[in-house]
């Protein structure tokens, strides 16, 4: 059964190119909160610190918080891209990530070639790839442009293609970064319908966003991150209203 468990999860990004000692000292002196030195004397940014939470089937969780709070890092960690430096993470179920839908797109290949490439990225067999190509072609409405290199697409057409490719598979655990809504009005409508379908079909949704209206509309639970820590976790109304009232961020420990 799809579920996510995190215990005391931590991610640190080493700043490899901070070599000079004086620069190191200055960095560490000025912002002692998230920059620190690890045991091998490297300066690291504590991107996520001591996160513990569980997400169960049926939950739609919004990750909220300011820039650099760790929302995207958490999504990437859930997707299996970053290995935690401390703590434990368990994700059960097929994971689909809409973190950067344009990732892995080859600009000089045609739309159709890109769809088949994406199918390979996902480890699909030929029959599944064909099915995916048909569905993406139909949904994106690109028509004859499917056989033209992506390089010559307009920005809106590229978004349509990458959106269609990213959302054609219905995963059990859906990880999303912001809402990727661009394109013409007709497509916006269809994109919204597709997202509703995807969100409702997924057993678990984890969505990182700044848009509180979207959070209220879509999510049942919100986790507020600040400085890489969870500062609030609970029903949307509680957390979001706390943010709107400007509830103080609990003091750093």
């Amino acid at each position, binding site marked *: 059964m799809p579920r996510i468990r995190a215990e005391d999860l931590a991610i640190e990004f080493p700043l490899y190119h901070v070599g000079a000692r004086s620069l190191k000292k200055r960095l560490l002196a000025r912002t002692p909160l998230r920059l620190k030195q690890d045991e091998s004397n490297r300066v690291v940014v504590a991107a996520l610190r001591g996160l513990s939470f569980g997400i169960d089937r049926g939950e739609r969780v919004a990750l909220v918080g300011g820039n650099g709070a760790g929302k995207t890092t958490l999504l990437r960690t859930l997707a299996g*891209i970053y290995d935690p430096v401390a703590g434990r*993470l368990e994700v059960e179920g097929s994971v689909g990530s809409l973190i950067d839908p344009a990732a892995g797109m*080859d600009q000089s290949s045609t739309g159709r070639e890109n769809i088949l*490439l994406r199918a390979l990225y996902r*480890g699909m067999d030929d029959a599944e790839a064909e099915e995916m190509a048909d569905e993406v072609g139909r949904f994106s409405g690109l028509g004859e442009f499917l056989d033209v290199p992506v390089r010559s697409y307009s920005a809106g057409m590229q978004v349509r293609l990458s959106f269609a490719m990213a959302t054609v598979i*219905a995963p059990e655990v859906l990880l999303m970064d912001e809402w990727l809504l661009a394109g013409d009005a007709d497509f916006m409508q269809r994109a919204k319908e597709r997202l509703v379908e995807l969100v409702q079909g997924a057993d678990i949704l984890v969505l990182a966003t700044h848009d509180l209206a979207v959070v209220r509309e879509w999510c049942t639970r919100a986790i507020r991150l600040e400085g890489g820590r969870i500062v609030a976790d609970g029903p949307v109304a509680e957390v979001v209203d706390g943010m709107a009232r400007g509830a103080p961020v609990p003091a750093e420990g």
Partner: protein
Amino acid sequence: MLQSTIAPSPSQTVLYVADAARPRRLERALEDISTGFARWRLAAALARLDIRNRYRGSVLGPFWLSLSTAVMVVALGLLYSTLFTLPLGEYLPYLSVGLIVWGLINQTVTDACESLISAEGIIRQLPLPYTVHALRCVFRNAAVAAHSLPLILVVFAVFGHLPGPEALLAFAGLALVGANAFALSIVLGMVCARFRDIPPIVGSVLQLAFFMSPVLWKPELLGDRRVWLPLNPFYTLMETVRGPLVEGGAPGVVWLSAIAFTLLTCASAFAFFVRFRGRIAFWV
């Protein structure tokens, strides 16, 4: 809008566990390698795109490489056969195999440094086995080599050089080169992702190795000191291909050295991969 999305195949339902206290490094590295090889079609497709994009809009495309190699072989062949006073018919087959195999080794090692750095955009966005990126690097170099290796046959045909059945051993030599290419794509890819000073160092080492190895010159010219040559892995790897093709086979010590070096690179690549695999996403 009914059922416009495709349900995931059941095989995709997985349990992902990452535990910093119990990293299971060996298990996860082995899993990476096995799933990476199982997905060789993705690596091949990406390698094909790499080649196509590199030569986009060019008329001859990768055949420019065949052409430039051919020009180089002929020019250096004429020059050095005069300098060494060797008959062209004897020297050119030797030189052509040496230059072409050296080119293959040189280009593969240089490219191995970029195997992970060049995949940065994918590594940080999509969870994929890292083995796929190393395989991609091997495949794209194999594709480039496929445009220069056939020149050897042309040279052999022009000079009527017909190797004996031992020539088949050259395939074993190419397999050794391939194994090294994979291992180096992993270990150099990782080291170069972490320390960005390594690629220029590798470039200098390769250039030095070219002059220190008997590519243009023959090992006999070293006299008694040629006994030290098998310590040069670049030479022995190249010789496992050149020996069978032009010299009626390579000496046992050359094979021994080449195989020992291959085992060494594979073992160090594996050890490095097991230990630092989890750090790659932070390095690129």
